[in-house]
């Protein structure tokens, strides 16, 4: 009886509950993470309006030094996790993620080209790095899409993983090639960024990535139900009244956009797109209308947490966050792979 009631709880109420719980978690992470660091600060002092900002060192550390990095974690985590959900739903394969498909690597190549050669689209009023990153992820996605549609029943896990490995190797080679042209002082910074690093030290990269973020979230909101239907197979979805081709294109574009935005800010941080959606599905079920927002929120909290760990575990040395996510995500991925077979 309780099971029946739980099932009858409408999607609307489940969604509200999810947003409150996961939203609370994310908010706590955003407020809590900047408190962690070499200099201890107090949240009450940070938000104490009686002290002018110029004199409030706690507020300065919070808002200038630590909050941008935390927000970068939130944005990158949310984007990579939801892009993972979309790729998995679209390809009907739980092992598909921006990282495993080589899409992150494509985005990284794009961003690196823009940064290394100083491309600028100032005349367009648009930032070059996020757009180049988007172009790179789109190129990688186009290859996956061609592979997926060349076979009638989607990609088998084997083909998917092999394609991902190949694309990662290919794009990594190109990245090394481009890196060769960077000057020596840049090399270390690029290397850190390629490991996945949230040390952005200003709000600027976040602001420039924001339009891409907004567009991809708007598309994700529309995509949730089509992704559910696509799980039945393209023909069955079409027979239920879905414009399958439009949904697939929207999914590929928005997930590439999200990956591009994330990578342009934090580099190709790995495994967020696989760890987060799977944990979320265990908690809330498979309905994408719940899974997508929950993954975005949990992805944000997850990456902020990983970054807090990266900053403290070898303090005062700060590790790139990608090292932590890989250490957690690698074994998790293997576990999933074994469990499925």
């Amino acid at each position: 009886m309780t099971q029946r009631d739980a099932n009858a709880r409408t999607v609307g109420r489940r969604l509200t509950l999810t947003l409150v719980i996961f939203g609370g978690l994310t908010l706590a992470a955003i407020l809590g993470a900047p408190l962690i660091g070499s200099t201890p600060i107090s949240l009450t002092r940070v938000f104490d309006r009686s002290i002018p900002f110029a004199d409030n060192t706690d507020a300065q550390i919070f808002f200038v030094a630590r909050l941008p990095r935390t927000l970068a974690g939130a944005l990158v985590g949310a984007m990579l996790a939801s892009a993972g959900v979309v790729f998995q739903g679209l390809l009907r394969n739980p092992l598909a993620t921006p990282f495993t498909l080589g899409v992150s690597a494509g985005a990284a190549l794009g961003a690196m080209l823009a940064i290394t050669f100083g491309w600028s689209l100032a005349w367009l009023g648009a930032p070059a790095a996020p757009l180049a990153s988007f172009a790179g992820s789109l190129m990688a996605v186009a290859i996956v899409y061609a592979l997926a549609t060349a076979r009638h029943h989607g990609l088998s896990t084997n083909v998917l993983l092999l394609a991902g490995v190949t694309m990662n190797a290919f794009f990594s080679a190109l990245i090394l090639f481009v890196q060769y042209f960077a000057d020596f002082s840049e090399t270390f910074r690029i290397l850190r960024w390629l490991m996945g690093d949230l040390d952005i030290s200003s709000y600027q990269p976040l602001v420039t990535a924001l339009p891409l973020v907004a567009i991809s979230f708007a598309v994700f909101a529309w995509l949730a139900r089509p992704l559910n239907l696509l799980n039945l197979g393209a023909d069955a979805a079409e027979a239920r009244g879905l414009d399958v081709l439009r949904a697939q294109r929207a999914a590929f574009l928005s997930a590439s956009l999200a990956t591009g935005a994330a990578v342009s800010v934090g580099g190709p941080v790995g495994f967020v797109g696989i760890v987060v959606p799977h944990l979320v599905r265990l908690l809330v079920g498979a309905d994408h209308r719940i899974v997508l927002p929950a993954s975005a929120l949990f992805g944000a909290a997850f990456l902020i947490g990983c970054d807090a760990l990266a900053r403290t575990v070898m303090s005062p040395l700060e590790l790139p966050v990608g090292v932590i996510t890989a250490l957690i995500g690698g074994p998790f991925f293997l576990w999933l792979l074994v469990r499925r077979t």
Partner: protein
Amino acid sequence: MLQAAEVTFGYTEAPVVRDVSLEVPAGGFVGIIGPNGSGKTTLLRLLAGTRKPQRGAIFLDGAPLGSIRRAEVARRMAVVPQETHLAFDYSVLEVVLMGRYPHLGAFEIEGPRDIELARTALAATGTGALEARDFTTLSGGEKQRVIIAAALAQISASERTAEQPAILLLDEPTAALDLKYQLETASLLRTLHHAHALSVVVSTHDLNFAASLCTTLVLLRGGQVLAAGPVTDVLTPARIRDLYGVDAEVTRHPRTGHLTVVALSACGPHEATE
């Protein structure tokens, strides 16, 4: 009424379905039969509108299928594929509620009425007790019934009349099932056809299954219609030899009252290709 008028379609250069015409009258029960690779599944896709014919056209109550909005078609006509695999653990109720998609706006959420319709559909297919189960954990026969329930949820509570009943298309509904489930599926389809006043189209290579259910048969060979008409006219030893290359006996079974086909022996290769 659903009609195909000289439709031709191929995935590559070679057509899989060639100049096929057929009619599904309101309230009819039509079987599309033929050996593997004869174009049954493709013909069903054309009828459902999920593939567009390269020549010819499909008409729903006289209107070309391509001219009707996708969602409107989906509210009238539902498809049950041969097999359904899900990559993620949706509950049975969630799968059936996906049938309500064409009734909802882009951001609309299923309401109590949709849930009630989904439960009614589950009850009609005898799967009410499964609603909280993970779809992926069900047996083949149970999955089949749940997908039929989703199809019923999809076409229920639409405006329709006796002249424009809803249409259910099933692709090889018994191919993956053992004997008991085959019989159960047959009796379920018979009940649904009567109780819900549906038109039903079913593709199958099982002649006895078709003979026990359908009023009209369309025999498909190499993508073309070999014969079409009432079961008793079409299901003859000569036609079966043409279709499958086997000698068979066709009798009316004393207990079931249906025509029954018993395959006796394979014909020689040259006869079979004739």
